[in-house]
């Protein structure tokens, strides 16, 4: 049954756009906030996801979560540069997107402008790892921020559980759906017939074909955990404490007491990934502060400079600093937060306190007398307790 184009509102673009289903927002939208500045690419998140959901036969190449080095890393190879190339040069007019989305640019007979990765594109999850731009010989000394010549950073990638998913639009069988209760996007494992249309359509390349069951699979937002009020595996395994699993309201319903609303709508410090593609993705990134702005604007849209400025001032902004410190502080999903008397607190939906984190940890100075003597030698310093 052919789908019909309709107009929907995409607030990330500041305008209406074409989509293949009516606008239908979930009761609340699953979201993840990533502070790119804190990532060390240890892949603890990747392994947490893999060892929970995708270590079966047929899922070998699947990384529902992956960390890639930008600008030269990507999994699958070239996922973003290929789609940008396909779409061609597009412009923003201030905060309003003046270009075409992947739905608007879809050729006749297609629902989405897309491309299918080759099998070999899935072979190199760590391609470009730690490769910076430029050459260290030319830029031996980097004191300015952002760096103009030599830089790289890590991008944390999961499915964006988009408001307007390309995977849903492209599926000729309506086998992919968005849960009304939390906006998590799932592939119906009973309905899918393995056409791989979603692999071509999703610009983020976050649906994957199971080689044994011959149907598509994707990040499930750890929904069994969400249903228990818990943050996802990739969030809680993150040693950099840079992720926050949360729920996001549409901008007009933003509530500053809610963590994601505060970061995305109030402070506008967390930005969507490639918003110009038109999917209204629901993973938000605090951009890396040392990376040239033109590159970041292509990735995260027009709000980049402001977000970087805010982040640099976070030390003088107790509310923002407090919320950033609540990242990785609890496995439970924080419904609301506040910062009072030097302490950031997270609360559950019933208002009970889940966690409290001081903005400054107390400092203890150990007297020198406690220093240990080593085999009769006089004490010369503190012994590390390792």
């Amino acid at each position, binding site marked *: *049954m052919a789908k019909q184009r309709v107009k929907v509102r995409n607030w990330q673009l500041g305008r209406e756009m074409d989509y293949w289903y009516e606008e239908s927002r979930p009761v609340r939208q699953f979201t993840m906030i990533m502070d790119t500045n804190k990532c060390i690419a240890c892949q603890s998140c990747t392994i947490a996801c893999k060892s929970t959901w995708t270590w079966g036969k047929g899922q070998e190449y699947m990384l529902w979560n992956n960390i890639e080095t930008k600008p030269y890393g990507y999994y699958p190879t070239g996922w973003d540069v290929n789609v940008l190339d396909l779409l061609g040069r597009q412009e923003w007019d201030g905060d309003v997107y003046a270009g075409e989305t992947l739905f608007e640019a879809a050729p006749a007979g*297609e629902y989405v402008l897309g491309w299918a990765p080759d099998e070999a594109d899935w072979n190199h999850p760590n391609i470009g790892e730690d490769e910076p731009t430029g050459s260290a010989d030319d830029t031996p000394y980097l004191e300015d921020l952002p760096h103009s010549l030599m830089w790289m950073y890590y991008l944390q990638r999961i499915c964006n559980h988009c408001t307007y998913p390309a995977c849903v639009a492209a599926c000729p069988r309506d086998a992919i759906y968005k849960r009304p209760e939390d906006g998590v996007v799932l592939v119906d494992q009973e309905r899918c017939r393995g*056409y791989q249309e979603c692999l071509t359509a999703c610009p983020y390349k976050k649906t994957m074909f199971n080689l044994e069951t011959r149907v598509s699979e994707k990040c499930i937002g750890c929904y069994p955990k969400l249903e228990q009020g818990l943050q996802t595996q990739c969030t809680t395994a993150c040693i950099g404490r840079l992720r926050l699993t949360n729920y996001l309201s549409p901008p007009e319903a933003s509530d500053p007491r809610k963590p994601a609303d505060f970061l995305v709508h109030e402070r506008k410090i967390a930005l969507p990934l490639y918003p110009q593609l038109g999917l209204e993705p629901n993973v938000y990134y605090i951009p890396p502060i040392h990376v040239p702005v033109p590159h970041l604007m292509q990735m995260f849209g027009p709000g980049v400079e402001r977000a970087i400025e805010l982040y640099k001032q976070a030390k003088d902004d107790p509310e923002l600093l407090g919320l950033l410190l609540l990242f990785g502080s609890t496995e439970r999903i924080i419904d609301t937060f506040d910062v009072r008397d030097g302490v950031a607190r997270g609360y559950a939906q019933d208002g009970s306190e889940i966690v409290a984190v001081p903005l400054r940890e107390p400092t203890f100075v150990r007297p020198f007398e406690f220093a240990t003597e080593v085999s009769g030698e006089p004490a010369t310093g503190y012994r590390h307790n390792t």
Partner: protein
Amino acid sequence: MAEGMTRKDALVAAGAVGAVGAGAVGAAGVLGLFGSEAPPEAALVAAYRRGELPQDDPQSSAWDDAAEAVVPLSPQRVSPPFLDAAGVAELRARALHNGSDVAFRLTWDDGSVDDLDGVRRYHDAVAVMLPTVAGDPAPITMGDRGKPVHILQWRATWQRDLTGQTGVDQIYPRVEHDVMPDDVLPPQTASLYWVGRKAGNPLSQVKRATPVEQIVAEGFGTTTHLPELTARGRGVHDGGSWAVALGFPAKRDGVGAALEPAQRWSVAFAVWLGDQENRGGRKHYANWIPFALELP
């Protein structure tokens, strides 16, 4: 068809404009299909044959008893996603029946065997579409709401499944696995890592009794799998073409009316070339052609 409708209108209603030429299998046949009160001259006739039908032997000499219809194929460009480039121009069809079973033999040119599914690896396949009731057929777009069609699909991958030779170890013969769920978990738990299979998706099963799936559809994207395994079939790839035989009981319990002689039937076909990334709606299809069963 409503009175006063022209043949072109009927095709428009069926969403098949652009494929008008595709149905021209011997002009007499097609013209006879629409609106004629006289018994149509069928483009494809299932010859009557006593005894067993060669339902899984496309190379049997029994097929020589049936006349061959050459059916033009068109790339599907009625409903997205479209097939951009045609890779095969025609299908050759023969049919037999013995009063209780109906069988088809279908051949088409295809230079490669594609019988392993993987990332961007698709399979060769062929499908036969039949109306569920005699008379004017439902829309060519795999029927319509309230106007179901009966479809039989043979897939090269399913045929290979019968040999147990599909899956990761076949796609990547040098694959090394360390610990897999079934090495360390009880079978019930390990099977959770094959979600599609566990959920009962017929596409995900590799242990199967037949390479032919039967479905009922009411429009593109609405296929419903029929669990009864009453269809048989087998394909042979030889000299740059596939020959596939498939057969099923003429009594179509739970699907539609029995296929009987002395009634006006239609049949349509679809072909997928795996190496050209054909799958789902990205297929070659033939419009309805008049089909009849020879009286015993």
